[in-house]
């Protein structure tokens, strides 16, 4: 399984990104890590280039919303029905209600949304999701 990952937008929080890289590899994924400061278009390009199964977007600095609202438009240009779109980290500025953020990001086109959820829990859920989809 191939995963493209990185941190979206003008966001330089790299610590989780490094841990995500390591953890995905340990779970047997092939990882393409675009690092921090990655724009949505770059993510989409990488998914196409690598023929990835999963796009795992991180955002920590609270500005993900502004960077992800156009995901729907971008997705509509290609056939991504086999790709899992996943986002996690800290998905709003200030203290957020996780219940509200889920629907919002799913609306943008994400399948799995993890606001302030531990990495391992998120990756467990990803694996479940992949299993069930089969």
């Amino acid at each position: 399984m191939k995963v493209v990952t990185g941190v979206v937008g003008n966001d330089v929080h790299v610590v989780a990104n490094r841990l995500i890289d390591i953890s995905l590899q340990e779970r047997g994924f092939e990882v393409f890590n675009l690092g921090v400061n990655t724009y949505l278009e770059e993510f989409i390009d990488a998914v196409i280039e690598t023929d990835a199964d999963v796009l795992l977007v991180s955002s920590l600095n609270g500005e993900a919303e502004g960077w992800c609202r156009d995901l729907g438009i971008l997705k509509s240009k290609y056939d991504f029905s086999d790709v899992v779109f996943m986002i996690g980290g800290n998905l709003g500025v200030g203290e957020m209600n996780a219940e509200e953020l889920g629907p919002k990001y799913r609306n943008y086109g994400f399948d799995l949304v993890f606001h302030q959820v531990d990495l391992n829990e998120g990756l467990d859920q990803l694996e479940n999701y992949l299993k069930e989809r089969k």
Partner: protein
Amino acid sequence: MSLLQREREIIVQNEFIDQFDFKEVEEFIKSASKELFISHKFKTTNEMLVQPRGGFPTYDKVFQLYKEFKNSGVDVLPLTIDSNTRLNDYATAKKMLALSEENDVDMLNGYPLINHGYRTTRKMITHYDTPVSLRHGTPDARLLVEIALASGIFEIEGGPITYLLPYSKNFPLDKAFLYWKYVERVCAAYSELNEPINRESFGPLSATMQPPAIVLVIQIIEMLLSLEEGVKSFSVSFSQTGSMLQDVVSSNVLKKLSRKYADRFGHNDAVINLVYHQWMGAFPYNKHYSDSLINTSTVIAAMVGADKIITKTRNEAFGIPTKEANALAVANVKYTLNMLKGLPKISDEAEEENLTNMVNEIMEAVLNDSADTLWRKVFNAIKKGHIEIPFSPHIINANKVITVRDPDGNIRIHNKGKLPISDKSFAFERSKIRLKENERVVDKIIQDIGIML
């Protein structure tokens, strides 16, 4: 017209700002209230100054934030800039500011100073008549600093290394040096009109497993680069390491060596202050624990004898704090500092000697580089990996150094990469590390990042 002035005129010709009036700004700074200068405050008080972090997209919210801070007894106000502005992306900042103003939600994690402009911002700053510190993280801060100074913000944080390696992925390092040279010169020039403008380096770096030797080297270098351009008031800083003793040792050595290197380069007249950052790493999600962590940081700050403390809040893990939570933190810190009495003088000879040696060793390697200017020597040092910081997102960072904690929580150099430290110093570091049998270094690091959780 000087070369600098020519460059300045070009810089301020930017589509996102109104006409910049150099004359008027100079007049303003010349006659500005002394209360706006932290350099003046440092001179006239013996107490540790308390400064929070904070910034919101809109003018009104920052105004309200400052009001809360003043009520809580704040000494220095912060102006934290949003991350688009930090990356000179003023167009996005403008768009998000408009969205924030229309919908009353914060679409930016800080104040887009460029878009607000100095005429507006100055109103707020002179209204509160309290020193304001510019907190950004911007590699190219030329325009930002012009606008900040014109607004009455007389402390500028950052530097070519500390605002680059932790804050950028691929901004060119040599440009950062040159752009910061501009900043230093502008600060130096204005320093002659009234009280000195204070420059402050950002010691926390990536706030994650930073070895004190590297932090101190970078603090000293940024200080020298700044003083070299004529700045007269400089603050070195570092953040809580996770070991009380390592904080004390870092402080003792940093105070000693920053003075030593400043004097060695002939800057005997420069005033150097020490700033302590409360824990900058990952915070617990339990707000009571965050309170405990913050208070513990305060106690340590008092023990290390910092001149200023920069505070965190109980909301840190969750997101940008509300103004209430932020002001509460300030009030608590003030209470604790006021109540703390009878602080012991602490030192640890062996640790201080080893840290001093490591800093001197790296400094000598940097200074021995054959380049003609200090900034080029430093540039080469970073390219060679003589200086690098763990968990930097920047492509130029060598990423060879690996640090882990010893059983007392001290951050130790496990892999020295290309760091030019002696075998003896490195052996000292290694001798402190204890890994459990079969423990993988990566698991240890993950655990060590999360010690406060």
